[in-house]
């Protein structure tokens, strides 16, 4: 008998919109769960992000390996169909503004009354309590509010968010983690489980190492804060490389490799705290030296010396890199009627178990199946996925 992915047989219904809940649901799908997305009437990702063959690449990537049904939840027939899915699910996810899912009639209390096995996760930007409860939030807003932008954004043109979607995806990953824990808890305690996740909670968790010194009575962190020096991107004769030197032995090896033994004898750089205190001067010295040879030369030289370093790839270079494909970090996702696109693969491998094949739904593609066979809907799609 072949082994199966760990969440095989777990049924997830996702009322989510945008990035957070869909990404969490997609992660659960790639762990083997069967996931059905009830399309939201305000699925703004379908309208605001670059279009691709009738949908958007972001929609396809965020909803990989999920199924999709479109229902009008103001219509009694469609509401009854939605309940058929919800009543027989193990997990329900939603990330509307706080309280919206209650007003739609699918809040935790009513769902738990009809499905006492449910693991129910609500996610929002700022939670259900307090002066900011119910405020809308997407990734750039939480980057700004949480301090992420102040610590990681570019400062030359004012405060800037760094990358659109990072905290969305991180929050989705933490939802996935909480749901897995709740599924284990359900085995011991046969009760419905209610999880409340916030992007504020996830973002501040993501920043914990940057906050750590401050929380421990140190000075507030700044965007220039580093834990070691040298550490960062350095220009070479052709393109930048990343270099990190973690201790004195590595610093000696680094100085020797770049032909700058004078730096390790310099009192400003002789200890790790001294290097941090004088990192601006140290960076200038290193940049001047690395600019004398191309990146390939330095990468070979530094790797021979055991100094952590890497080429700073552009995204098209990273995407084409042989290790990306050899290790399975990227894969093709098939979208019905639209062809394939490249997207990130699950970062895990379970020994002896094949990954689920990459695919993504067109919005509403499984609606007819639900209308035809509501009683056996889950079984029908599980059969298709086998």
């Amino acid at each position, binding site marked *: 008998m072949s082994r199966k992915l760990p969440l095989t047989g777990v049924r997830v219904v996702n009322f989510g919109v945008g990035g957070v809940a869909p990404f969490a649901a997609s992660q659960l799908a790639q762990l083997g769960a069967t996931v059905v997305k009830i399309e939201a009437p*305000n699925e*703004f990702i379908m*309208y*605001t992000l670059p279009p691709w063959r009738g949908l958007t690449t972001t929609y396809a990537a965020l909803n990989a390996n999920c199924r999709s049904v479109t229902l009008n939840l103001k219509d009694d027939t469609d509401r009854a169909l939605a309940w058929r899915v919800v009543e027989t699910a193990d997990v329900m996810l939603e990330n509307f503004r706080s309280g919206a899912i209650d007003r739609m009639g699918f809040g935790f209390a009513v769902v738990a009354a009809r499905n006492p096995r449910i693991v129910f996760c609500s996610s929002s930007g*700022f*939670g259900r*309590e*307090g*002066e*900011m409860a119910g*405020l*809308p*939030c*997407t990734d*750039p*807003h*939480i980057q*700004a*509010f*949480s*301090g992420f*932008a*102040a*610590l990681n954004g570019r400062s030359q*043109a*004012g*405060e800037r*968010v760094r990358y*659109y979607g990072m905290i969305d995806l991180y*929050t989705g990953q*933490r*939802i996935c983690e*909480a749901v897995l824990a*709740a599924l284990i808890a359900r085995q011991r305690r046969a009760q419905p*489980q*209610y*999880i*409340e*996740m*916030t992007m*504020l*909670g*996830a973002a*501040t*968790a993501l*920043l*914990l190492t*940057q*906050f750590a010194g*401050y*929380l*421990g009575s140190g000075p*507030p*962190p700044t965007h220039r804060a580093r834990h070691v020096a040298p550490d960062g991107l350095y220009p070479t004769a052709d393109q930048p490389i990343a270099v990190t030197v973690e201790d004195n032995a590595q610093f000696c090896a680094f100085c020797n490799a770049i032909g700058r033994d004078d730096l390790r004898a310099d009192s400003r750089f002789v200890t790790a705290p001294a290097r941090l205190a004088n990192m601006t001067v140290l960076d200038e010295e290193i940049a001047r030296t690395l600019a004398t040879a191309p990146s390939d030369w330095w990468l070979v030289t530094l790797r021979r010396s055991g100094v952590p370093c890497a080429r700073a790839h552009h995204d098209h270079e990273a995407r084409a890199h042989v290790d990306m494909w050899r290790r399975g970090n990227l894969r093709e996702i098939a979208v019905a009627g639209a062809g394939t696109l490249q997207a990130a693969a699950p970062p895990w491998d379970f020994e002896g178990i094949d990954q689920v094949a990459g695919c993504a739904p067109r919005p509403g593609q499984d609606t007819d199946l639900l209308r035809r066979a509501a009683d056996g809907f889950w079984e029908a799609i599980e059969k298709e996925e086998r």
Partner: protein
Amino acid sequence: MRDGFVTLDFLPHQRAAWRALCAEIGLDEFADAVGDDWFSTVGMEDRIDWARPHYERALARFTRAEAVMLIRRHGGWAVPFQSPAEVLGHPQSLLYASAFFGDGQAHLRLPWRIDGAPQATRSYAVAPPLGAHTHEVLAALPAGEAS
């Protein structure tokens, strides 16, 4: 803003609300100039760098708190850009952040609530020194497994 920056966001169906905000802050001509392409000057699109100085000039007389209230009054989405000190002491952080200052102390907790109750917090403390619990762990092992 006089004291920093804020976010500014309107959804695709909120063009009228965005125009009303522009009118109130003296950006009528700008709103006319961008026309149907208005959303690309608000969202994370290429034209935001072109539009940014217009918004910044128009909002320069406000504080972050004033600008956030103004944008929200028009139905837009806005929050202040905060420093680490501001976020860790914010009242909303006391309710939901994974790290926050409360009662004069730093606290940590998991980012989720279960069944409505905040996860237990613990006061911030530095990690144990390397090997601090070696003897305690070895002593707890069955005889013969500690060698």
